[in-house]
């Protein structure tokens, strides 16, 4: 069995074994399975054929699953997919470890659902076929709903219902547009084919107004998952109510399915539509950056605060994609990884606090550096990574996304390569980052520094059975994440270089379209604009 198949089938096998094994064994089986999957993913990375090639590179023989409809089960990666799969493979064992003491009842079900979630995420990242991608994309919904609804907080049922309905709403639009595209292809070529590359190549030839509709529907599908401003209302509740492990995967990889889907399918399949709708998306994104930051400012619940900050961070990530240049695209993918690491780590840290104090309320917690210095160190580090301190990983992605947006207009376009955004968008988005620094520092100030405040000061304390500060298991969970944050912050070159070919390939149709739009605006546009640009030339 090839390494690629191992990453998908082994978790499923583990889920089946866990369901019939003694309750005490469940977590160990899950840990072993996720460890093997991580090893298999590393094996894929080491054995990756050609880092300089942006194409999908096959990892398995295609299994002709439904030849009547041209659906085949074949796995393959380009560097972006591989990086996302690796992110998931790294986070999963840490989540399992992080659930060891937190999950006390119905352990078998918990770890079995986790393994199913693992398999479907891996399938989504490895798929080269639209339908198998959709199978993985959609099936993540089911384990996550049960993780939230069974092991979540007090409002878990409402959170799970809202999550299910919102995400299903998005994915059903995604399915509808993929099937519509498949039917169009059948009409013109006479054969069913759901191969992603073939579908994208076909869709790019569709007329511009058709692409507008296609991007609207595909984008709507992914926008719920990201989530984009106004479709985001499921996220704070789901994040807040989910158990720690669920929150980590939700923020770490599930949201990335949305941005990954935009990168992999929506943008390349309907470039004309993407360019036409880019201003709308960008405005929604910068609204989200500012809005999420303002909400974070007034949050008392630290987990909700991190959840809202995710909305802002991912909005910036999407903004980078809509810059339609290599800087923005690379920055966006890099940001996906960094957000997964640092936000995932923050949720793990908050989970550790919650296990000890049974509260996430910042008014009741404070000065924890005195009680838990090791925890405070890690929490501070990940917060700084999240707010984009240079030297840590968050900075690189944020900076590239903003810079990509900044240069994406006719005047400052690099290499005669204009975009449709520009400095105005970048400025507003950057203001959101200043706000982000403020609320995150306020959070740090309340939680870590200042006088020590613990909930049992007011006579309410349930012993957790855990040591006051982090134990070795917990340190073992956070250390790899801290190392990765530091490494990706200090030496981003290698990863960025390997992402470049895939990003270039995704962006291939855009320069011509954007250029044509600018030319059309220049020739048909009002005289004022022409005069304006000529004076600008003269000044230069």
């Amino acid at each position, binding site marked *: 069995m090839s390494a690629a198949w191992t990453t998908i089938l082994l978790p499923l096998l583990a889920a089946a074994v866990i369901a019939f094994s003694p309750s005490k064994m469940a977590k160990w089986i899950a840990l072993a399975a996720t460890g093997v999957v991580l090893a298999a993913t590393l094996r894929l990375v080491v054995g990756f054929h050609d880092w300089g090639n942006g194409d999908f590179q096959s990892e398995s023989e295609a299994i002709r699953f*439904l030849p009547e409809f041209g659906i085949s089960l074949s796995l393959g990666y380009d560097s972006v997919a591989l990086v996302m799969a690796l992110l998931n493979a790294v986070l999963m064992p840490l989540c399992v470890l992080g659930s060891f003491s937190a999950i006390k009842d119905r352990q078998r079900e918990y770890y079995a659902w986790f393994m199913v979630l693992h398999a479907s995420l891996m399938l989504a990242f490895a798929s080269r076929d639209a339908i198998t991608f959709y199978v993985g994309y959609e099936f993540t919904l089911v384990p996550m709903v049960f993780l939230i609804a069974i092991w979540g907080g007090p409002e878990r049922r409402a959170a799970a219902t809202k999550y299910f309905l919102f995400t299903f709403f998005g994915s059903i*639009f995604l399915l509808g547009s993929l099937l*519509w595209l498949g039917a169009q292809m059948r009409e013109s070529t006479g054969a069913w084919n759901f191969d992603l590359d073939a579908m994208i190549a076909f869709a790019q030839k569709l007329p511009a107004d058709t692409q507008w509709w296609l991007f609207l529907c595909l984008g709507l599908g992914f926008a719920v998952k990201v989530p984009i401003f106004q479709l985001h209302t499921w996220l704070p509740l789901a994040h807040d109510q989910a158990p720690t492990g669920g929150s980590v995967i939700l923020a770490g990889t599930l949201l990335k399915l949305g941005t990954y889907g935009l990168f992999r399918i929506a943008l390349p399949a309907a470039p004309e539509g993407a360019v036409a709708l880019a201003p709308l998306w960008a405005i929604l994104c910068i609204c989200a950056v500012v809005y999420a930051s303002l909400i974070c400012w007034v949050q008392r619940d630290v987990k909700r605060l991190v959840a809202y900050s995710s909305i802002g961070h991912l909005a910036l990530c999407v903004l980078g994609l809509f810059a339609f240049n290599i800087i923005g695209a690379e920055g966006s993918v890099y940001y996906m990884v960094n957000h997964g690491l640092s936000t995932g780590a923050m949720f793990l840290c908050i989970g550790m606090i919650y296990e000890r104090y049974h509260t996430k309320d910042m008014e009741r917690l404070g000065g924890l550096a005195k009680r838990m210095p090791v925890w405070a160190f890690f929490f501070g580090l990940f917060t700084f990574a999240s707010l984009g301190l240079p030297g840590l990983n968050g900075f690189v992605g944020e900076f590239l996304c903003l810079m990509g947006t900044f240069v994406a207009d006719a005047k400052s376009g690099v290499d005669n390569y204009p975009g449709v955004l520009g400095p105005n968008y970048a400025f507003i988005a950057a203001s959101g980052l200043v706000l982000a620094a403020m609320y995150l520092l306020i959070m740090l100030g309340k939680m870590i520094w200042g006088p020590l405040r613990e909930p049992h000061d007011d006579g309410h304390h349930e012993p957790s059975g855990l040591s006051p500060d982090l134990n070795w298991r917990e340190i073992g969970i956070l250390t790899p994440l801290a190392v990765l944050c530091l490494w990706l912050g200090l030496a981003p070159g290698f990863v960025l270089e390997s992402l470049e070919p895939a990003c270039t390939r995704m962006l291939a149709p855009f320069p011509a379209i954007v250029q044509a739009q600018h030319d059309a605006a220049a020739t048909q546009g009002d005289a004022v604009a022409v005069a304006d640009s000529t004076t600008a030339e003269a000044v230069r």
Partner: protein
Amino acid sequence: MTIAAPITLASTMADRVGLLWPELLLLAAAMVVALMGLSKDRTIRGAVGPVSILAVLASGLLALFTGGADAAAAAGVPFPALAQWLKPMVALIAAGLMAVQGGFVDQALEAAIGRNAAAFNPLRAIRGEFHAFALFSIAGVMLLTTATDLIWIFLALELVSLPTYVMVAIGRGDRPGLEAAVKYFFLGAMATAIMLMGFALLYGATGSLQLDLIQNAFGAQAATGGIALLGVGGLMLASVGLFFKITAVPMHFYAPDVYEGAPLPVTAFLSFIPKVAGFVGLILVLGTAGLTAGELPRPIIALLWMAAILTMSLGNMGALLQRSMKRTMAYSSIAHSGYMLVALAAGTTDALDALLFYLFAYGVTTVATFGGLAVIQRAGGDADRFEDLAGLRRTHPWATAMIVLGALSFTGIPPLLGFFGKFWILTSAFEAGQIALCVFLVVNSLVSARYYLRFMATPVVAEPDSNATPTERNPSLAPVLASVAFGLALLVLPCFTGSIFGWVQRATDPAMGAAASAPAAAQSADSR
């Protein structure tokens, strides 16, 4: 060419009976089962259920071997090979539905006899009749699949319906059951009258009751300026009459009341067997007017279109408001008919294949879900409220898992079988250019997710209310076994969808009858 003569000979009634082995087996089994139910011996009475299941499975196997001959006999009608897919498929799912009925008929009586609290009284026992009626109904569907004229369609449909009226009435014998049965019977009779009026108009318009001759007559009319108004009216009335069987708007009103009044296993039966019959009837009748060639008269297309949209939407919205599980399932079954009507309105061979596959996926999911729901009951009735499912995972883990799988498949979550049903209907409708219908289908799937989520979440997440009277365990293992078998099929069959699709495609191939009839004709020529 003298081939025409042997074919006519082969399709005389006496020869035709020789092709109906599956139906004959079912009718014989019905007689046997009815007698067994009156036996004084408890083990023989207990064998009624297993014998009926075996009979249904055996008739399905027989159908696998006689299907080709049926196609030969039906050569000339729109879809001669329909039975090759439908008979085995219906038999398989009907066997599951029979298993879901395990441990429910005569339960109190048998328990009393077991405690020596009562003597066996043949007048009070209904197990034999009940199973016999179910077998009659299944035989009716099988007969319908090989129908070649309107009279045959009518008789077969009545054979499907009449036993189900009785099943609703005697299943529990209480007031709601009787009320449901009376309502079902009178409204059913009215629908049949509408359908017969349509058949009469068809006869007037074409001068024949035989499907192949009607098809020819319509073909001739279409070539010279369109199907006559009389024929269009006939098709329309016949369709509306058949809408009753598939619970489509505007003939859906009875479904919630009847499904709620009937005992749970009968509800499962009602939501599949009459539905298949109704759709087969629609396919046969509309097939005469060019269903898959996209040549249906405009008013008929408009009718199907409106019915599809209204049926999906009203079904799903109605289901959202229910507190009874059986009523929810009734509305859900209405909604699924709407999805299948989308395929009918799309009017291509692909869409027809999609419909036939969807019926199968819907049937498997129905058995898995209802089998899981049938593991609990209350004294003298069903456990019918969503709250009754709370805590089910502790007492019945397997049933819980199957209810979850069934609800996921009904919702259309990949990679379960229900997803592929929706997948095929959507692709074929998109291909036929029915984008509006597809949008309605997609939005309706979203609405349906809301109430299917209750089926998923309640047994897994909710804890039982300590004040509520606890539910009882169904003494029979048959429902849960059927549920597990069909639930696992939801997971496993998607791996074989390729071959199932191929099977369905062969069944709607108009050339199949001709191809199958050639060797049959040669054979009969040899024997001469």
